[in-house]
């Protein structure tokens, strides 16, 4: 299936729940609300025409100081899906508000989401509801804050031993 056909199939199925679509450098992207995110992901995996059986990547973006994004939610979670049987890809995005940074977990759909969601929690501080084991993946437990948030001070150091800063 080609990218425009994938987007058309998802728009046909979810209608107004699809907030926007675009294609950047051939990467076809679907923007949905956080409420319908899990439903969309499940459909992507289980639909016979789509069969996105692989979660290539799960990450987030912090648009805190991004020009032109003042009125949109601060964060976005980004899912890159790939289908081995059909050899096609799609990208799903959903906005996440700063005051309620909770995203439904995708672990029941793709087990790899376990570590990817832990990394997003580690770096961006987005919580994943009903994640089986939401601990930091890369940083140490004593670390305070989430370093890839744009308001994390670029010079802030938190060494375990040795001088601070």
């Amino acid at each position, binding site marked *: 299936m080609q990218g425009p056909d994938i987007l058309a199939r998802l728009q046909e199925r979810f209608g107004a729940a699809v907030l926007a679509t675009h294609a950047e450098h051939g990467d076809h992207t679907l923007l949905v609300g956080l409420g319908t995110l899990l439903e969309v992901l499940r459909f992507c995996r289980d639909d016979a025409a789509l069969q996105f059986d692989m979660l290539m990547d799960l990450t987030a973006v912090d648009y805190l100081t991004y020009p032109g994004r003042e009125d949109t939610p601060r964060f976005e979670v980004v899912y890159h899906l790939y289908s081995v049987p059909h050899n096609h890809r799609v990208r799903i995005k959903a906005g996440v508000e700063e005051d309620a940074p909770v995203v439904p977990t995708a672990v029941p759909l793709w087990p790899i989401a376990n570590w990817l969601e832990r990394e997003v929690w580690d770096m961006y501080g987005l919580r994943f509801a009903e994640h089986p084991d939401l601990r930091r993946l890369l940083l*140490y437990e004593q670390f305070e804050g989430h*370093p890839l948030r744009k308001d994390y001070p670029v010079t802030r150091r938190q060494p*375990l*031993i*040795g001088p601070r800063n």
Partner: protein
Amino acid sequence: MGVADFFTTKLDAALGWARKYSIFQYPFVTACCGMEYMATACSHYDVDRFGAGLPRFSPRQADVLFVVGTISHKMAPVLRRVYDQMTEPKWVVAFGVCTCTGGFYDNYATVQGIDTILPVDVYIPGCPPRPESVLDGLMKLQDKIAVGRQRY
């Protein structure tokens, strides 16, 4: 100079000469500098010419700690523990610019120079350093080992 001083100085010189040619290193390899370390250690550059050909993978049997590669804050306590487990006399070589200063990893994750957590004898800058500069650093370390008062 008394007779006792004469013998102490000669003993120091003999011990220093022996120690500089019997370096048992502990390679603490964490990143890409490890490739240059391997190139230096293998037959083409042959670190064994300087008597440093036998890496010991136990800190308790090693004299020189080669810190090769970026050290993150999460790794720092491990490195310090390895250093503390080594027996005297011991020396530390900072191999590559990440261990010297943190290099271009000026961020939340990286130790800005391992000399913030343990004493360093020789700094070998480079990203990564060529084997020639590693051997140069090794010879400087040998000079440092050979001169001065030996502990025994």
